[in-house]
């Protein structure tokens, strides 16, 4: 099985998981995240890289943005693969109908305006004129309808869950798209970002086998940057799409994503000023404090508002004794999350109280709080009849370390020590990316770490109600039930350090942040 199909399978499985267990933590509109900058260093000397800039009205045109992509994506077509690196890179190549502000209000994307009918069923989008794909062909309402109702519902698990609600789609003219939903679905307007609804060229994909289409290698979208060259293992070179529909944009001439698998080398590249931007886990948590002192970078945790990533300890509830609520509660008590946040993540994340991020709209703070208590954990285990053996161990479980970097291994080691104090013996297991995806999607694990991005999605009943008060009531109820039941151990509202060269502007101007198209990013 190749990597792409493996990942697709994982994505499907995750989508399923979200639908079955996790769907309550979905919320489509998230409040502005009150992130303080990690630090505010006064402006100081900038590293002297010749950028070749020319001043234009408002923003500076030109320049090359060097950044990191880690790990190397298997493909750049975001409609076919939704792993994080693919989305980060593909966001520059493929655009969608809307963009979102940091407080997650819709903003014009490919669509310059939109209307929702009072019954919440009909959505009308007006596209910008003169949008072209990278191959020069115009992007019309036909491409939008094809992408969202034909291709994405087949290839993109998350998009399928939303766009399959479209009952009827019409294209009265080349620039107008009208979607009629099967039933009212409040989150629809917030699920049109470039990671969920990338618009692909119909003339290339219609009637072909999407995944085997030879054009996948060229990744033709309508975004501000087009693929010039992809040297496997070295870099992905994107250049300006000259036919871009927004006046003067994109400002940058080139974006180069360098593939640097080694964490120490990534930090070094940042220190030497060879790159002007990092994202997600590019800089390991233990390096953040040290590198934050560099004078020419701004460090922010903004730009992840749309994703509001949540981190949790995944327990396979199909395996004994994790099918017992008391056991899961014992784990929730035994995990010293405060100390874990400080030691493993160096104080970056906030401890999660339940499935819904506190930064999102329907967050319910009044849920059961577990808190760290080995005594309570032991009492629950005693109650279950899991008495300690002669070696002090009550039960031995396996923990599969996600193979996405050192911090996951440290987290596994921390969890093992923490649970060990309550007599829950953890055996760590390591595997590679493909192996992890396989074991995880086949329920062939006992515990593993997981990170799920809370995209705007559904929880049927609440989503189809337009009355906000009723929705809050419903979401609160579900959060309380879930936190009592702890199917997984919610650990952190993850935060990622984005290092941005101080000359670089507009990187985190939207809620999609570093996955965004970067059309308005410029060197100032």
């Amino acid at each position: 099985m190749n990597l792409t199909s493996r990942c697709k399978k994982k994505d499907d499985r995750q989508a399923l998981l979200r639908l079955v267990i996790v769907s309550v933590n979905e919320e489509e509109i998230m409040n502005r995240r009150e992130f303080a900058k990690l630090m505010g260093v006064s402006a100081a000397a900038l590293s002297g890289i010749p950028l070749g800039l020319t001043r234009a009205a408002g923003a500076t045109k030109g320049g090359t943005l060097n950044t990191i992509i880690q790990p190397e994506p298997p493909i750049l077509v975001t409609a076919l693969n939704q792993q994080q690196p693919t989305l980060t890179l593909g966001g520059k190549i493929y655009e969608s109908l809307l963009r979102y502000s940091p407080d997650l209000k819709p903003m014009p994307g490919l669509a310059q305006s939109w209307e929702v009918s009072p019954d919440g069923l009909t959505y009308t989008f007006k596209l910008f004129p003169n949008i072209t794909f990278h191959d020069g062909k115009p992007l019309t309402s036909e491409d939008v309808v094809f992408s969202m109702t034909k291709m994405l519902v087949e290839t993109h698990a998350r998009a399928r869950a939303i766009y399959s609600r479209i009952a009827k789609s019409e294209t009265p003219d080349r620039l107008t798209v009208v979607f009629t939903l099967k039933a009212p679905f409040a989150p629809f307007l917030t699920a049109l970002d470039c990671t969920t609804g990338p618009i692909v060229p119909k003339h290339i994909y219609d009637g072909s086998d999407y995944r085997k289409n030879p054009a996948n290698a060229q990744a033709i979208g309508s975004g501000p940057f087009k693929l010039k060259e992809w040297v496997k293992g070295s870099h992905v070179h994107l250049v300006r799409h000259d036919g871009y529909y927004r006046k003067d944009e994109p400002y940058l001439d080139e974006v180069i994503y360098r593939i640097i698998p080694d964490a120490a080398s990534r930090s070094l590249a940042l220190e030497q000023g060879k790159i002007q931007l990092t994202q997600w886990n590019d800089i390991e948590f233990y390096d953040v404090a040290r590198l934050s002192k560099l004078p020419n970078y701004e460090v922010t945790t903004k730009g992840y508002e749309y994703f509001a990533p949540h981190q949790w300890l995944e327990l396979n509830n199909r395996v004994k004794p994790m099918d017992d609520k008391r056991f899961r509660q014992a784990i929730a008590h035994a995990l010293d999350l405060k100390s874990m946040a400080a030691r493993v993540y160096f104080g970056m994340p906030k401890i999660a109280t339940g499935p819904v991020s506190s930064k999102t709209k329907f967050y319910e703070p009044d849920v059961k709080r577990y808190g760290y208590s080995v005594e309570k954990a032991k009492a629950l285990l005693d109650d279950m009849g899991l008495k300690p053996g002669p070696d002090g161990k009550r039960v031995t479980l396996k923990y599969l370390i996600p193979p996405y970097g050192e911090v996951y291994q440290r987290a596994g080691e921390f969890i093992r020590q923490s649970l060990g104090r309550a007599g829950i013996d953890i055996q760590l297991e390591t595997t590679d990316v493909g192996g992890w995806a396989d074991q995880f999607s086949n329920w062939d694990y006992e515990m593993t770490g997981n990170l799920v991005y809370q995209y705007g999605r559904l929880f049927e009943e609440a989503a189809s109600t337009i009355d906000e008060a009723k929705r809050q009531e419903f979401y609160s109820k579900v959060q309380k039930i879930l936190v009592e039941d702890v199917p997984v151990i919610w650990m952190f509202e993850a935060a990622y350090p984005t290092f941005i060269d101080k000359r670089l502007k507009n990187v985190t101007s939207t809620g999609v942040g570093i996955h965004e198209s970067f059309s308005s990013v410029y060197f100032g």
Partner: protein
Amino acid sequence: MTILKAFLRHPTGMIGLFFLLCVVLLAVSAPWLFPDDPWDMVGAPFQPPLTEGLWLGSDMLGRDVAAGIAHGARISLIIGVISTLTSLTIGVTVGATAGYFGGKVDEIMMRLTELFQTIPGFVLAILLVATLGPKISNVIFAIGIVSWPPLARLTRAEFMRLRGREFVQAAVCQGQRAMTVVLRRILPNAISPIIVTGSLAVASAILIESALSFMGLGDPNLMSWGFMIGAARTVIRQAWWMSVFPGLAILLTVLAINLVGEGLNDVMNPRISRRR
């Protein structure tokens, strides 16, 4: 006895033995010196050496580096010894069979040995551990599999040399069984170079294990020196002590074993020892 006496007079061999005994002592006394689990986070992260209670500092989670080295000594020595015994078993069996019987048997055995010798040892070890899964038993197995061919060739050469000697032929003529001849007549006379090579193999086994752990292919449940260095590598600029001390531990241990091995070689080799 004469060998022992000779060894006691061998200066570098004794230095090696001294360090080796120190490491063994450290490994044996680890549970008393550091009664806590070496994985326990006992202090603040990134504490430099000589911080109170942390002689050698702490790592990124606040684990005691000294405790890690003491407990890691157990793992490294256990892996070194057991995997060497594994490779000795395979190597001596193959070499003895080939050397004693000769002919077709020898042909087959040696082609098999060459097959293993042509594959780069460390690459094969990585492949085996990655395929079988990073568990201590698999690590030992992998090291055993990649380090037996030199032992087999050495044993074969010794056996071929002794096979034609009168005392062996006499034993065969008396009707002693092949097994008896091999184990009671030839092996005791061939054992010296095997012991020397075997002792050096312990050192290389420790190195292979460290390299595997460094690459993240060690058993994630065991605190070993290679693991400590592997985890410390990325933070070397913040915390040099996390990689330097386990590195010194590996260096000293491997050096000590090599010195002991050379000392044994000198005193067991009749030509060299007679000159003393």
